[in-house]
């Protein structure tokens, strides 16, 4: 819990394990009408340590973080694929560009959250100061951490080592080996190969290209492989690895009897690596248009984890966007309470011309929604109210869509203050 520069605002952080899961804001703070925090941020993680995938704010805007091989967030894109922020770091994790990051995405170097007030990273057991490239306190595990210098970060090799616990560093190759070993023990051979290959310069990208041009690949798999490759190019920096990358693509290309195609495309893409973010953004946008399932599958592949883990989490997260599980709960459905139903009945009753009235239970929350036809034929406005078991309104807003179904405006009443989003 903390307060910012405004003495009226209080923020509450809710963790799942050691991961920040939800942030709530109480605009009245301790001086207002009482304890009344509202959900303001929630976070989606992948299967790996510090693998932050997305952040959703109070008005359902989602930002996706594109990370490099160490989990460092390099690009932040919104749900349309537009790059909201491209971050550049120095070797020890200091953000050098933009000078004042504006995207509301706290995770940065190696996927750890940056406290913007202090400029320090939270590495669980210790705070890390990227300006000086060392921890601000001694390793609490002492020399057991494996370093004679108790303040040193990641053995002074931040490009190849990570220290998510703040207690002892590991090499990213070691991490890959451990991951591969774990996957093999679970008979996930293909996933193991993908993970292992992704840590070899160029080979992961070559495998993506191989997938893109394999005769038996589906269009979806080709699109996913293309995006995965784009992310690799943009975030890993392919230029030092172009030679091994080309050798790898050529070898795989021969195997597929498509060597010329693969090498030509690979060369063109490698040359275009400078465009980086735009390529990734375009790729993400393309897949986004294919719908939640495709995006989920794509992200699962691009994060190189077995299907059924990240894929399911992403699907659930994206399902939130479609209104089927808008608020994370972890509560099993247990029926709508009388208080919630009464609030919903009152809400829906007002809409004489409302269509598609829907009631969806989401854990201890219930969402009531109805579509009101708009002034222009084909356009409509969807009115939504989410209440908790006690009948208290958690969210209240209306979205207006034009006759093509394109979103054009949101009016938000709860959580306050009343505001508009276009």
């Amino acid at each position, binding site marked *: 819990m903390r307060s910012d520069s405004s003495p009226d605002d209080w923020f509450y952080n809710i963790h799942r394990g050691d991961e920040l899961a939800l942030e709530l804001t109480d605009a009245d703070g301790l001086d207002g009408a009482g304890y009344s925090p509202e959900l303001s941020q929630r976070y989606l993680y992948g299967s790996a340590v510090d693998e932050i995938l997305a952040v959703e704010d109070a008005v359902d805007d989602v930002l996706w973080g594109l990370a490099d091989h160490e989990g460092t967030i390099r690009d932040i894109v919104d749900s349309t694929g537009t790059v909201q922020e491209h971050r550049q770091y120095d070797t020890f994790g200091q953000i050098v560009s933009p000078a004042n990051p504006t995207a509301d995405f706290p995770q940065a170097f190696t996927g750890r959250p940056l406290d913007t007030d202090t400029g320090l990273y939270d590495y669980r057991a210790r705070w890390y100061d990227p300006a000086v490239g060392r921890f601000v306190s001694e390793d609490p595990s002492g020399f057991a951490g494996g370093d004679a210098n108790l303040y040193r970060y990641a053995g002074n090799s931040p490009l190849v080592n990570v220290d998510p616990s703040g207690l002892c560093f590991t090499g990213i190759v070691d991490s890959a080996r451990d991951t591969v070993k774990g996957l093999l023990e679970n008979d996930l051979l293909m996933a193991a190969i993908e993970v292992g290959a992704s840590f070899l310069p160029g080979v992961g990208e070559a495998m993506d290209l191989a997938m893109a041009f394999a005769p038996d690949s589906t269009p979806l798999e080709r699109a996913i492989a293309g995006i995965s490759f784009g992310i690799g190019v943009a975030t890993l920096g392919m230029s030092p690895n172009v030679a091994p990358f080309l050798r790898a693509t050529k070898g795989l290309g021969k195997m597929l009897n498509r060597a010329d195609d693969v090498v030509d495309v690979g060369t063109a893409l490698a040359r275009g690596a400078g465009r980086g973010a735009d390529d990734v953004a375009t790729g993400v946008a393309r897949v986004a248009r294919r719908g939640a399932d495709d995006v989920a599958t794509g992200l699962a592949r691009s994060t190189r984890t077995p299907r059924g883990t990240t894929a399911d989490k992403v699907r659930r997260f994206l399902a939130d966007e479609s209104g089927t599980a808008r608020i994370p709960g972890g509560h099993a459905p247990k029926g709508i309470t009388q208080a919630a139903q009464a609030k919903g009945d009152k809400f829906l009753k007002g809409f*004489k011309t409302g269509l598609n009235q829907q009631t969806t239970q989401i854990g201890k929350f219930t969402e009531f929604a109805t579509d009101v036809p708009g002034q222009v034929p084909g356009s409509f406005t969807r009115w939504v109210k989410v209440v908790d078991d006690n009948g208290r309104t958690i969210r209240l807003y209306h979205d207006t869509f034009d006759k093509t179904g394109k979103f054009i*405006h949101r009016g938000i009443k709860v959580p306050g203050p009343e505001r508009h989003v276009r």
Partner: protein
Amino acid sequence: MMLLTKEMLRSEMKSYLDGHSPFSAVRRFVFQYFEAEEGFEVTEELDDVFEVFLPYLQHEESVGDPDRELRLRRLHELLGDTPTFLKERAVFAIEFDKLRDLAKKASDGTISNSIYLDQVSKLSPCKFDYEAVASWANSHIDDQKPVLAKIGDGFNA
């Protein structure tokens, strides 16, 4: 439980038209009922008006409308003198200019009568007596604003 009436809506409109409150106050007056946090009820008259006015306000809020003051002035006037044909009056007030253009086109044969009526019926998503509205429009082809005497209480105009 608070009862909202047509006169309360007119009072909000008047306040806006006289420059005493912003347009958003009118919008809020209507939206507060649909957001239903305070247990509002509406009269049957106001319910009829809302069926037409809510879609317009949604549209205005999302894309804007340079003529909103003019529309509101007409609506305020047409809702004032009678409890009948309120949906039709609301449509006529809000879409007066478009109705007059359609009526002219129907009158000079640019569009057929069936197309004319079809176009009129689409001026609001709610169910209303579009033939009555069309007949009112026919009598206003040369007028710059709605004339109460030509509207009466429906088909007799």
